C-alpha cells in the first residue's frame, strides 16, 4: 500500500502525468466528436476539460501542479498563431477581393464583442474586477491575458472566460448561421473568428476550409484590434 502511495505521489507531481493526461483527454474528446460527425455540441475543448477536471479534483492536485505538465501544450498557442500565415497565404486572392467587408466587419465585431461584454456586465451588476476580466474575452488567450493585466482584471479568470467564450461561439455558430440562412462560408467563418478566437477557428476548420481560413484571419486581426480598443472602451464606460 505504501508503495502504491509513493508511486502516486511521484506521478501526481510529475509534469509527465499531466501532459499525457491532457493529450489523452483531447484524443478521446476529439475522437468521440469525429465518430459522431462533429456535431456542434461535441466541443473537444469542453469535453477535454470535463475529463481532466474531475481527475484533478479527486487526486487533490492543484492547478499549478497540473500546469507544470500542461504548459508544454499551452506554449504552442504562440507558434500556432504564427502558423495562421499559411491559410492566409493560401486564400490571398479571395481575401484581396473582400478587403472592405473584412475591415468593416472586423471593426463592428470587435467593438460589439468588448463593448457588449462591458455594458451587459454593468447591467447585471457584476463587480468591477470581473467586468474588466470579461472585456477582452473574444480575443485569443495569450493576448487576452495581457490586456486583462494591463486594465486591472484578473488574468487567470480572463483565461477561463476566454475559453468559455470560445466554446459558446463554437457550439452555437452552426445552428445560428443556419437559422439566419447565411450560406457564405467567408462571412460565417469570419464572424466566429472575431467572436470566438481560436476555438471558433478550430470549429470553422472542421466545417469548411474557406470558413477556417476566414476565421483565422479574423482571429489574428481581432487580437490586434482588441488590444487597441479595450483600453479605450474601459476608459469611456468603466
Amino acid at each position, binding site marked *: 500500500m505504501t508503495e502504491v502511495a509513493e508511486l502516486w505521489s511521484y506521478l501526481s507531481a510529475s509534469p509527465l502525468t499531466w501532459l499525457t493526461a491532457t493529450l489523452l483527454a483531447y484524443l478521446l474528446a476529439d475522437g468521440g466528436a469525429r465518430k459522431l460527425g462533429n456535431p456542434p455540441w461535441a466541443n473537444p475543448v469542453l469535453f477535454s476539460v470535463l475529463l481532466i477536471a474531475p481527475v484533478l479534483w479527486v487526486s487533490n492536485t492543484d492547478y499549478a501542479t497540473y500546469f507544470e505538465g500542461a504548459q508544454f501544450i499551452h506554449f504552442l498557442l504562440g507558434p500556432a498563431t504564427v502558423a495562421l500565415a499559411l491559410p492566409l497565404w493560401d486564400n490571398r486572392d479571395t481575401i484581396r477581393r473582400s478587403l472592405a467587408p473584412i475591415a468593416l466587419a472586423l471593426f463592428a*465585431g470587435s467593438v460589439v464583442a468588448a463593448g457588449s461584454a462591458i455594458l451587459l456586465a454593468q447591467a447585471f451588476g457584476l463587480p468591477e474586477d470581473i467586468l474588466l476580466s470579461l472585456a477582452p474575452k473574444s480575443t485569443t488567450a495569450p493576448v487576452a491575458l495581457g490586456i486583462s493585466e494591463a486594465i486591472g482584471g484578473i488574468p487567470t479568470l480572463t483565461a477561463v472566460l476566454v475559453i468559455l467564450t470560445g466554446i459558446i461561439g463554437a457550439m452555437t455558430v452552426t445552428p445560428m448561421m443556419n437559422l439566419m440562412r447565411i450560406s457564405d462560408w467567408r462571412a460565417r467563418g469570419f464572424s466566429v473568428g472575431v467572436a470566438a478566437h481560436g476555438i471558433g477557428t478550430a470549429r470553422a476548420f472542421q466545417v469548411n476550409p474557406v470558413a477556417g481560413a476566414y476565421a483565422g484571419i479574423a482571429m489574428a486581426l481581432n487580437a490586434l484590434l482588441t488590444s487597441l480598443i479595450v483600453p479605450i472602451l474601459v476608459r469611456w464606460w468603466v
Partner: protein
Amino acid sequence: MLPSLGTLLGCQLIGEVAARSLGLPIPGPVLGLALLLTLIALRPTLADRLRPTTSVVLAHLSLLFVPAGVGVIGNLDVLSRDWAPLLAVLVLSTWLAMMATVGTFLLVRRWTGADPA
C-alpha cells in the same frame, strides 16, 4: 518538421522582441504571423515546406486551449458565486458579436459588390 518548427518559433521570437522593444500594443505572435506572411510572399516555395507542420498544428488547434480551460478549477469560487450573470453575459455578448460581424460583412459586400459568393 524541425526546420518548420524553427521557422515558426523564430518568427514568434522576432515578433515578441519587436513588440517589447518598440513598445507596440500588437501581440508578439501576431507580429510573427505578419513576418511569416512577408517571408512566404518573398519566397513562395517556403509555404510548401511549412505546410506539413502547420496543417498538423492547425488541425488540432483545440488541444492548445485545454490547459487554459482546465483553469476553471482555480476559479471555482468566482464562477460558482456569479455563474448565472457571467454565463448570460458570455452567451449574449458572443451572439451579438457574431451577428454584428456577419451582418456587416454581408452588407458591405453587397454595397461594394465585392466578390459575390
